[in-house]
């Protein structure tokens, strides 16, 4: 019997309100409703989550690894972009 493979979905989870959703893995599912349930069952078993996003993996546009020199190399010489030249007052806390 011919079977089409189940589509792949990328899963993003928000651990606590205020933090951004973070990519945590992927699931196979026939459609978006089942993808959300699969993500809930696979990735939130230990109370990790307050919110889940699922996105069709095909919707992700990714950079080409062979482009990495042109894409990312130029930043290596621009250390002044790192905020390491400032003293952060203690009151500011974690940035």
């Amino acid at each position: 019997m011919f079977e089409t493979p189940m589509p792949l979905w990328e899963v993003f989870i928000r651990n606590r309100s205020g933090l951004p959703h973070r990519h945590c893995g992927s699931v196979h599912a026939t459609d978006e409703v089942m993808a959300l349930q699969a993500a809930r069952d696979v990735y939130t078993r230990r109370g990790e989550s307050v919110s889940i996003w699922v996105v069709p993996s095909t919707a992700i546009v990714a950079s080409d690894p062979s482009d990495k020199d042109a894409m990312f190399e130029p930043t290596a010489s621009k250390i002044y972009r790192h905020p390491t030249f400032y003293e952060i007052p203690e009151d500011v806390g974690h940035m």
Partner: protein
Amino acid sequence: MTDKSALFDFVVALADDALVLGHRLSEWSGHAPTLEQDIALSNLGLDLIGQARLFYTYAGEIEGAGRNEDDLAYFRDQGQYRNLLLLELPIGDFAQTMARQFLYSAFLEPYFAAMMRSTDVRLAEIASKAVKEMTYHVRHTAEWVIRLGDGTEESQKRLVSALDDLWCYTGEMFVETASERLLVTMGIAPDKAEIKSQWLTRVGRVLTEATVETPRDGRMQSGGRSGRHTEHLGHLLGEMQVLARSHPGAVW
């Protein structure tokens, strides 16, 4: 029949339902069609086993004879088990597992919702925790029932055959035992007559969406609540209880 023994019977039956079905779901661990579904079925099973523990612990306290959850789960024989026959049937194929899980969850969710108003505080507390779990069980299994029914020719055939096989066991969910009747009058146990219409509406709606017919009521099987079981329960208990009985008091 005293109030105490009626309450014990009632709570043990709820515990047995949860444990037996939870054990059946655990049989899918490592065998489900996909990793995602493997974990999903185990999650459903663990919810039920968690509910069983709460009910057994409470039953032991009601009895007051020093029996704990393990004593009640592992050291009673099949004649003493009070679970519904529906829940002890073998897992069958994926459609049978999902059909049973849906038919039962669609009953248990409104049942627990009603039990949250129980005059027995402990039962109301357990129900308010368990009802959230059952809401998810209904949602998950209904989505599968819809996809199996409205899926391929093969999946629909399997769903229809599962519903035909299981339907004669659904009547027992709504049979009121003598203990329950007493507890209903005391406001402790929910009235099943009200649950039945909700159940029928919900099941009918999902099966319509699944493009299959709701089976007609025929002769209904019962006996689980009085300890008269199918041949399947003995095998289930044999496997489930062997460790505790061979090594009493074992811990890990």
